[in-house]
């Protein structure tokens, strides 16, 4: 009875959902073309939710509630805090960008908040059907956000493409859930794990097929090869702040759920799915990095880099579960900070509906905006995985997990493709620092809120690169809670 009434684990999501509804309502009473109240409201709601995550984390340990469907365990709290932080930084980046592109509409913030609700649910679900519902809440809101810039055809294309491939992925996911249910008689990960530990040999192929379908479904969301085709177009077409949010938030939420399903629910099938994930990781790292070499558009470049990073993350997925969770959680933090920063710089420079499209548009940035150029360099260095940045510590952790579990080949592919990535990241740095500026300064003064957002990203990137121990400890605790 007490179990049913304990709603504490869903408090963060509830706060965000409620804020979303209020934001929509508030918009109805705001003059057209203004969104200031929504952004302040969203910020307050997200901070409140973050505080509630902190309270949950510092309180006594929480068991699963709502008939075992939702939990506030270490993994979910860690990722919820990360997702909320990502959303906060996105909200800080948004007003300037929306104004520059004439998209100051309250729906933006409401959709953002609803998508956060989905993400929060995704990382805290212990049950496959509620996980699916959360996945859909997150995705549907994002489809809408991708298409918000109605004046640009690319934005429309991006939304449609994302929707079609997303629906495809959802179908796979659902089919996988059905197969797993067929084998185990339950959709609760806990019971699935128990059923799989005593699985009869005849049912094994069906279980593996179910796992494969789930992997395909997740593969779309994390942008792993060969389910990545949508990524460049969607990242390029969507409004830049949405891309920033998507690249950091969706990756965190989807990897959180992926970890829970595969390392916990389907842990007994590990020796069947591990080789598959290993192959996918190698292909993803290779293709993501090689394709990025050929890109001229910054956003497409970062999209392929995001695919490559999905590959790096997957190298740790095949490691022993404890190591995998720690390594992936830390990397998600580092990656979120860096990606928000990199897309954030592009968004912050946006003026009169235009933003830097190619590296050449950033030529001479170091002369005109030394601080901004230094920040973007820091983010690119972190993406490459060079000390003293969080990206380096993160890669070190991922590859250490892979090597410690005997997958040296994954680490080798990882580091060698990192060298390839250095080439295309450096090209942007070359433009900023070593090429003379072209024409007049066409870009916007960075608004104060965006300065705060970028400083936060840069601070986290540098701080966790120099002193990662506290986050590592948290990630380790989160990893333990799962096992």
């Amino acid at each position, binding site marked *: 009875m007490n179990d049913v009434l304990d709603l504490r684990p869903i408090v963060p999501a509830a706060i965000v959902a409620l804020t979303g509804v209020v934001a929509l309502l508030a918009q109805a009473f705001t003059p057209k073309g203004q969104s200031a109240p929504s952004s302040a409201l969203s910020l307050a709601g997200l901070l409140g939710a973050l505080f509630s995550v902190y309270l949950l984390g510092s309180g006594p340990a929480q068991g699963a509630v709502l008939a075992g469907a939702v939990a506030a365990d270490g993994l979910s709290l860690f990722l919820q805090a990360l997702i909320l932080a990502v959303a906060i930084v996105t909200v800080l980046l948004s007003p300037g960008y929306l104004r520059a592109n004439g998209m100051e509409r309250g729906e933006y913030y409401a959709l953002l908040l609803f998508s956060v609700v989905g993400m929060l649910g995704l990382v805290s679900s212990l049950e496959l059907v509620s996980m699916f519902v959360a996945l859909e809440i997150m995705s549907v809101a994002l489809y809408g956000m991708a298409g918000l810039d109605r004046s640009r055809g690319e934005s429309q294309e991006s939304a449609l493409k994302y929707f079609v491939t997303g629906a495809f992925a959802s179908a796979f996911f659902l089919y996988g859930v059905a197969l797993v249910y067929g084998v185990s008689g339950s959709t609760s990960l806990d019971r699935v794990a128990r059923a799989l530990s005593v699985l009869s040999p005849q049912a094994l192929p069906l279980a593996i097929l179910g796992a494969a379908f789930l992997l395909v479904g997740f593969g779309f969301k994390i942008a792993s090869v060969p389910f990545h085709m949508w990524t460049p177009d969607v990242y390029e077409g969507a409004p830049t702040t949405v891309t920033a949010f998507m690249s950091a938030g969706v990756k965190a939420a989807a990897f959180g759920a992926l970890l829970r399903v595969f390392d916990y629910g389907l842990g007994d099938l590990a020796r069947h799915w591990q080789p598959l994930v290993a192959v996918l990781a190698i292909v993803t790292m290779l293709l993501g990095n090689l394709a990025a070499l050929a890109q001229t558009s910054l956003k497409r470049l970062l999209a392929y880099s995001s695919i490559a990073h999905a590959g790096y993350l997957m190298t740790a997925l095949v490691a022993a579960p404890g190591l995998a969770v720690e390594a992936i959680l830390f990397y998600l933090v580092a990656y979120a900070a860096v990606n928000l920063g990199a897309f954030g710089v592009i968004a912050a420079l946006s003026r009169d509906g235009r933003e830097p499209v190619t590296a050449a548009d950033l030529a001479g940035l170091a002369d005109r905006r030394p601080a901004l150029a230094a920040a973007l360099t820091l983010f690119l260095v972190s993406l490459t995985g060079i000390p003293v940045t969080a990206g380096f510590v993160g890669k070190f952790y991922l590859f250490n997990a892979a090597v410690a579990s005997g997958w040296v080949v994954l680490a080798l592919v990882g580091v060698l493709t990192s*060298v390839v990535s*250095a080439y295309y990241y450096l090209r942007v740095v*070359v433009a900023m620092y070593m090429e003379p500026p072209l024409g007049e300064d066409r870009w916007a003064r960075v608004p104060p809120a965006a300065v705060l957002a970028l400083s936060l990203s840069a601070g986290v990137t540098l701080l966790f690169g120099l002193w990662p*121990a506290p986050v590592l400890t948290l990630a380790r605790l989160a990893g333990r809670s799962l096992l």
Partner: protein
Amino acid sequence: MNLPITQLLTLLILLPIAGALVIALTRRESQSLQKLAGLGVSLATFVLSTRLVSLFRDTAGMQFEERYAWIPAWGISYHVGIDGLSLWLVILTTFLTPLCLLGSWSQIESRVREFVVFMLLLEAGMIGVFVALDLFLFYVFWEAMLIPMYFLIGIWGHERRIYAAVKFFLYTFAGSVLMLVAFLVLYKASGIRSFDIPALVAAPVDPALQTWLFLACALAFAIKVPMWPFHTWLPDAHVEAPTAGSVILAAVLLKMGGYGFLRLAIPLFPDAAVRLAPLVGVLAVIGIVYGALVSLVQPDLKKLVAYSSVSHLGFVMLGIAALTTTSVTGAVYQMLNHGVSTGALFFLVGMLYDRRHTRLISEFGGLRAAMPWYFVVFLLISLSSIAMPGTNGFVGEFLILIGAWAFSPSLVAVATLGVILAAAYMLWMVKRVFYGGLSNPKNQGLSDLSAREATVLLPLVALTIVMGVLSPIFTRRIEPAADALVRQVRARTEAAPAGVAALEAAVPVAREAVVPATEARR
């Protein structure tokens, strides 16, 4: 000055970083202030570092050690310390940085603030590499240092600077990432859950695995040294870099390769190091002869000096491969010599370039008459580079050749050829540049050394002589550490003899690993 001795090394790393941070906050326009501040900070760092020499005890163990937990979960600590192998390399770094800043005083006119900041960060990174006693910390400094160097070449370099900067970066980065994987494998294989270098040295891993790990680390270091055939990034980087960049590159950065062998590759993988020593020795000697021959035909002064580095560092690598107390002492000493003499040569070539904006030997001739003091310094440094007795170069090369005799008389014989070739290319160049008539009218109005230039060169000239005549001041402090290293490796490998069969088995493996790498590069 009564500084806390226990934190001396940390202070040496933090002082340039703090200076860089403060200078980064100054206004773009206050350029002379930035130059002065940079010079002041680097001089203070140098003065501080001399305390290391005065407090150094001539023993083998680590001194000035500091250790703090950093990432306890992985057994990573901030562990620094120096011994005879690293002491002088730290001093070399702190000694050359102020000279570089002074030497670039009028050459660097744009973005002075960034230049000074990158130079100071580079200094901190280099000191860090030489004092790190934890693999993770070592790797952090090793990689982080690439960034300022990349900017130094790419922003203030010559015509093909961007190409050279990117090539430098990718080449060295590619080499080091394999080393990172080797560290991770070592971490797992050793089973002690620590990245601490002394702890890992005390717990050697399986000899078969050592071969692979040694090769991975050796590749990173061989690129840095650079050993033939991994040297192709060097001429581009040297030629395109601004003078200060070339000096730091030649004088300090290249030393990290040799130092890496002595501090990491050999003590961590002693069995493999002994087994693969013939391979390293042969590559070193090929480098000596190849570098000398290529220098002989260079029409460009800076390229000539760059290729002569390949040859000189071949000697260093021969000394390291031979692994006797004398040869290792000589190798460390030769690293210092090369830092002083090649650093000075790059300064000299840069000064000529500042006047004439060309480096082609054929453009010059008869400069002896126009620039007598310049000529005197150039000749002296050239003689040191040739290893003329009485100069520093002689002591180093002599120790290496004597020490390596026990290792392989035939390699020593071929290496000696390099000494003769060095005389040929250097003296021939000196003849073409300084002797003959002042036929080119553009050279007639050239001014001799300015006071600032003389101030930069004087310490280097003085060291050339001091290190040639009073070498025991230096070798006395190097030798105990070199001896300890050699003894430790011998004790390890003789306790568990690798045997002739293992040696023969290792060479094909090594060949397989090296040949595809060179082909891929083409």
